[in-house]
Structure formats: structure tokens, C-alpha cells
């Protein structure tokens, strides 16, 4: 595993733990289709959140949130629809969240959660 993948995996674990502590139920992780991957699918209060996790070891090359581009959001929206079809759920109660993890080596990570970004 390349070091960026290690960092990404660690970020996703941290994010999943964060969501669980916040009262979310994790429905799926690293769900794949032919067009891409959803990092985390979580659920709280009957609403399904398609969660994209972005992890950085520092903010020198920008905050993790800045990596979410318009194209990325569009892809997430179509993936969300695919997941709903595959899981047999209504796509009306689905939203897209972003979790940013800044995890500097040897220091506690900072986790931020943006709810309903699009």
C-alpha cells in the first residue's frame, strides 16, 4: 500500500468512528460500482448520508474541503443514485456529506463534517 493510501484508509477509519460517536449507523463502507467508489454510507434519523472522506496530513497544500470540486460532487450524486437503486431505497431521503480529516503525523487529527453540501 502506498503511503497516501495508508493515510486515506486511516482517515476513513477516523471518519467512521467520528460518525458513529455522532449517532450515525454505518450502512456501507467502500461501496464500489463501475463508475466509482463511495467512502461511507451512513444513516441517522431516516436520512441516508453518502459521505466522501478527504484526508490530508497538513493544510499546506490546501484544506481537504478544497479538494471537493464540482465534478467530484456530480460523480457523488450519480453514485448516490446507483447506491439507492442497489440497496432498494428511495433517493429522496439521501444527502451528500463531506468529512475533512487533517491528520498531521504524531498529532491528534482534526475532523470536520459538512452536512448536505449539494
Amino acid at each position: 500500500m502506498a503511503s497516501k493510501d495508508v493515510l486515506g484508509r486511516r482517515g476513513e477509519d477516523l471518519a467512521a468512528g467520528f460518525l458513529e460517536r455522532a449517532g450515525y449507523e454505518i450502512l456501507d463502507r467502500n461501496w464500489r460500482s463501475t463508475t466509482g467508489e463511495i467512502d461511507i454510507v451512513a444513516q441517522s434519523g431516516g436520512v441516508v448520508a453518502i459521505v466522501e472522506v478527504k484526508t490530508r496530513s497538513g493544510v499546506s497544500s490546501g484544506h481537504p474541503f478544497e479538494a471537493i470540486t464540482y465534478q467530484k460532487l456530480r460523480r457523488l450524486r450519480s453514485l448516490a443514485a446507483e447506491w439507492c437503486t442497489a440497496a432498494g431505497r428511495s433517493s429522496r431521503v439521501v444527502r451528500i456529506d463531506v468529512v475533512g480529516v487533517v491528520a498531521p503525523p504524531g498529532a491528534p487529527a482534526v475532523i470536520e463534517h459538512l452536512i448536505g453540501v449539494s
Partner: protein
Amino acid sequence: MAVARTWAVSLLGLEGALVEVETDVSSGLPRFIIIGLADRAISEAEGRVRQAVVNSDCALPPHRITVNLSPAGLPKNGTAFDLAIALSCLAATGHVESSSIARVVHAGELGLDGRLRPTPGILPIVRAARRAGRDVVMVPSANAAEASLVPGIRVVTVDSLRAAAIWHGAELDVGDPVLEPVVGPTAAPAEHLELADVLGQDDAVEALVTAAAGGHHLFLLGPPGSGKTMLAERLPGILPPLSTDAALDVSSVRSLGGERVGDVLDRVPPFEGPHHTATAAAVVGGGSGVIRPGAVARASHGVLFLDEAPEFARVVLDCLRQPLETGWITIHRANAVARFPARVQLVLAANPCPCGQYGAPESACQCAPSAIRRYFSRISGPLLDRIDLQVTVRRVSSAAARLASERPASTSAHARSRVLDARGRAEKRLRGTPWSLNAHVPGAYLRSSPIALPSTALRPLDRGLERGALTMRGYDRVLRVAWTLADLRGSAGPDLDDVSRALFLRKGIAA
């Protein structure tokens, strides 16, 4: 997070409207949105503001930042909004005091390193802020001189965003990094042109003084090399100095054009001499997006000189009729109307014919009569109607030049004091009327009692009217000039001599 508010000024022509700049930081993906009919230069403020903030050791949060320019329906343009946008972002994120920026009007363009660059239009912006009743305005140091020309408002000058943030209560180091202040272009020193340099043209000089004293438009007609341009260029030097308001108008137009305005208010009336290939847009002003002042606006409160007037496009000359009538130039665009001051004294110069030799004693004219007629038909009747003085300028003969060099010529200072005296007398007489200059007085008023002239003085005019050599409008113009000549002489009213001279001063071209 809170909404922070501050103020900026949007310029339309010389008139500025106060614009509230409000910034809201809300949770969401990082985006920087500027709304409120901003033009391209303002939309690009995002890039400048972002980097300037980072390089001033502050940070914008990775959230959605929305900047609204209100009133949202008013089109806004220019880079002067940068400072207000940056400071409202800093206030919305808690770097500076919201209450502090809310009472200050900001103007200035940012560099990526956070330096404030000299910004065009600072003078009209500061004037607009004062007129809107604001007390404090913050501008770039490079524009300090022109901002200080406006009385009655406190001007804070800063050389960088960091200095601006510190002034508003940010806790930043003052010292480093040292940014070299950006210096704007320097103003060219005004050239003093001396009336005494004009040799052997006593009649034409006298006509120039008359034009200055009465505010009359002037038409100089003469062969090439007779000194028409030289005369016209000396007119601003013998006009009275500008009032504070007029001088601020003149400097504001210069500031809008990006010219550097000195720290002492320039009270010399401006002089503009556009080339005869100038387009209508160059003369009256225009441009897409930002509406820029043209030559007429730049010459406001001064002299507009059109050399080789018949060579100008006819549409350009006719564009001058509205400003000559109203003293304003109004430029209409689909989304805005800009108004500039345009009270000019017009000086036209022309050769007597296309080859320039017609009527000159020492050379023969080659032009067909139809060519001469066509040449002058470019200057339309309505425009000529507004010109009171039409003077023929002859080439100086060697004898006249020798004679002139032997006795002292009239200096600019002397001529100006005569002009001031005459204007003072006219103003006193016209007190209680809407006019202050002879050139603006309508003929009906001049012909009515109590200032109607005795019939003995009017005899040459009445005879001209009877013979059909003079129209009624021409009659009024001669009367106006006669009053100016009387004012110059220091007399209570024109006599036969003044009327005859006035008649002579409008015989430049056939009317």
C-alpha cells in the same frame, strides 16, 4: 458565523453611490461568491483578496464565503472594491472588529502580497463618501494626496491590507514583512504659456481677452502659421482661477482617467485639444463596461480647442451641441446613465480654405469656390450659432513683428487682471439674474429695459438688420460681445464704439 458589513463607493461618471459590502461565512464547501451586479474586475477580486489575506498572516476558513454588494441592482465596476471586500471577510471571520469597519468607507485595489495599489477614481470616491455624509474613508497611501483635497472628511491612508487590519483592531505584528509602498504615476508639471510670446497679433490677442472676459466661444480663422494654436493655448492662462468645486471636478475627472492628482488643488483651467481624427466616443466619452470621460469632460471648466475644426467628422462636432447647451454630458448605456460636467469654453480654429491660402496677400489660393463652401459646411449652422466671436487671424508681416518687438506686449498676468475686473463688473450687473457671464445672457434680456442701449449706439446694428446683413440672432450676439467690451473698458454700458468693434469681431466668416 456572523455577517460583517462595511462600505465602498461605486462610481458612475463622476457621481458615486454608497455601496454596502456584506460578507457572510456559512458552513459548506469552500467557495467564494460575489453577488450584486459586479463586473469582471470585481469578480476577480476573489483571487486578489484570498492571496492578500493569506499574505497578511490571516486565513479565510474553508467554508462558503458570500459577498453581497448592495444595492444589488446597481451595476458596479472597478478594482476599488478589493479593500472593502477583504476587510469584510476578515471581520466575518473575527480577525478585525465588525463595529470598526462598519463606520468606514474603503477604497483600494489589492496586490497579491497585500499591498494597496494606487487606484483610479479615488478623488470622486472620497467626494461621494463625503456627500453621502460619511465621516471616515480609508484609501491607499499612494492616493493620499488627492484624497486630502476633499474638505470635511477624515482620510485614513494605509499601504497594505495588514496595516488596514491593524487599524481596525487586528492583532498582527506591525513591523514585518516590510512592503515597499507602490507609487503611482507622477503628474506632468503644468507648462506656463505666456501671452507676451504672441507677437504682432494685437487684434487677435484683444479678441482672446474678450472671449476670456465674457466667456464667449471663439472661432479663429486664418492661414497656416498665423498663430491660431499659439493663441488658443494661452487662453487658460488668462482665465480666472477655478473655484474649489470646479477645481475638484477637474481633478476628479483626471483621477477617473488614472492620472495622478497632486496634493495641491490645481486651479488652472484645463485645456484639451483633441486631434481632428477623434471619434465621437473619444470626444464625449464612452466605452463598454466602465464609462470613461471624453475630451469634453476633461476640458470642463476650461478650454476645448478644436484645431482644424472643418476636418472633424460632422457627427463629432454636432455631439458638442448638447454639452454647450446644458453644461453636462450624459452618456446612456443599456444598464446605466453616466453624467459628466462639460461646461467648456469652445475655441475652434480653421484655415480659410482647404489649401489655407485664401485671402492671404502673399500667396494665391488654389481652391475652387465649391471646395471652400464644402469645407465650411462641415461646421453646422447650429454649432456656429453658439459662437459669439469669429476672428480673422493674419500672418504677421516682418514690419509688424519688428514693431511688436520694440514695445512691450500684453502679459498673461496683465490680461488676467483685466479679465477679472471685467468679470467682476458683469457679475455685479447680473446679480439677481440666473447668469453671471455675458455669454450666457439671452438676447431678450439684453434688448429689454432697463439695460437696453440708446438708439444712437445701436445704429450700425439696426442698419445691418435692415440691409439683411445681420440676423436677429446675430444681432443678439453682437450685443453680448459689446457688453463684454464695455466691461473690459470699465464703462457702465456699451457705446457706439463698443458696438462697432463687436460687429467687427464676428465677421470672421460669412454668417
